[in-house]
């Protein structure tokens, strides 16, 4: 069996991208569900009152969150998860478009989601997570540095 000449760092980045794809995908789905619940509740509050006594939903209603913004955040999360999943394949195959540009778009998307979440979500939900946001910003920045700096030559167009 031939030994792969792919650097171990690319494999590690692919694994990390896979992990972050999961951690972006599930909150995205959850936000889409919350937005549909919120939408249904705003249309007919009495019919849905006993169906969802969720505390998060109450805080969303109290904070006057727009369900469309919430939905947009969820869809963006799913798109980023998809981009990350594509980049996993791209990094493993050392593909220029899927690896380099898939990771770049995913990194920009991940940072945008963190920033938009602070703008859209109620203060109650985002209070006390400031340092977590810094942590969420770290991986996209690190990914960009690695892809465009360290692994520049490994992911060039062939």
């Amino acid at each position, binding site marked *: 069996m031939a030994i792969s000449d792919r*650097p*171990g*760092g690319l*494999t*590690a*980045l692919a694994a*990390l991208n896979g992990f972050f794809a999961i951690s972006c995908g599930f909150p995205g789905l959850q936000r889409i569900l919350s937005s549909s619940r919120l939408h249904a509740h705003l249309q007919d509050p009495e019919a849905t009152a006993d169906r969802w006594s969720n505390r998060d939903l109450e805080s969303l209603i109290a904070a006057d969150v727009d369900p469309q913004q919430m939905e947009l955040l969820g869809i963006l999360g799913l798109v980023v998860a998809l981009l990350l999943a594509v980049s996993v394949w791209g990094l493993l195959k050392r593909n220029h478009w899927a690896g380099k540009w898939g990771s770049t778009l995913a990194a920009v998307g991940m940072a945008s989601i963190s920033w938009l979440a602070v703008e859209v979500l109620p203060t109650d939900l985002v*209070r*006390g*997570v*400031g*340092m*977590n946001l*810094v*942590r969420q910003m*770290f*991986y996209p920045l*690190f990914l960009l540095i*690695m892809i465009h700096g*360290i*692994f520049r030559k490994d992911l060039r167009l062939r």
Partner: protein
Amino acid sequence: MMGRWQILLHARNFLSQSLRSGSGVAFIVLTVTVGLGCASLVFFPIESELVTAKEFKENAAQGVGTFLAVATLQPGKFSTLSEQIESEELVELAMWGRYLVLDHPVLLSLTVMLLGLLLPVLLPLGSFACIAGDVQHHSIRYLLPRTTRTSLLLGRLLGALILSWTVITCLQGAVVMYLGIVLPLDGWGALITWGFQTLGALVALTVPYVALGVLCSTIFRSPMVALMGSVGFTLTVPLIAFSSREAWEPLGNLLYLLPWGYAHHLLSPDGTVVVKTALYCLGHGLIFTVIALLRLRRADL
């Protein structure tokens, strides 16, 4: 002169190699994520307005005093230690706790103390493959005709140290910036001064643990075993010391096999003690390096 250049060359090659290898990526991501997670844990009560800054400082002074009493191997049980501090029996430790919490930015002090406990476990990740990686793949055979074993080991140790110092500096920089901008309990002046002092403490603390990682990398031929060895030794020393101390008090001194027993003095109010502790850390690192060097020079590769 030639040897010095070779050491620098090996350090540069190690840096680029570890950034391109999976272990380097894992080390950077894990250290920064865990470090920022620690900071998040410390900042949470104030950020989420669960307690006021004043209440937080008062509680933290008590907690830090108890932690210092445990770390300095004070006789007595954990529950009685906090009572002794409250009744000012251990007045020196109570003063030390207040120095860290009331005289300096409390959130930064607590974050650095937590980092001081967690970094020893994370640091071997950046150095475990120093020698063992090449030994396992037999690529060391191609290197040795062109260089000496001493320059190879010293160069790679220097590379591992530079990598660890860079990651810690970035981490500390992010924490100080965040505290200055988002949670301005203390002024920028106090934050930056204390930030540099604590960074110096962490930099000194890094040396023995990175050297331990390199030592394990020369002892074991497989990088994974080297990693398990260094992390295992780092965790086992305090566990054995504290448990065997219950049976016989002097066995608690086993803690001094690693800097666990004295590293907290890097945050002492007395400048002379800080300098002495930093020198002890460097000395500890030197001992590990010398053993690693002797081991590598005699190894059949």
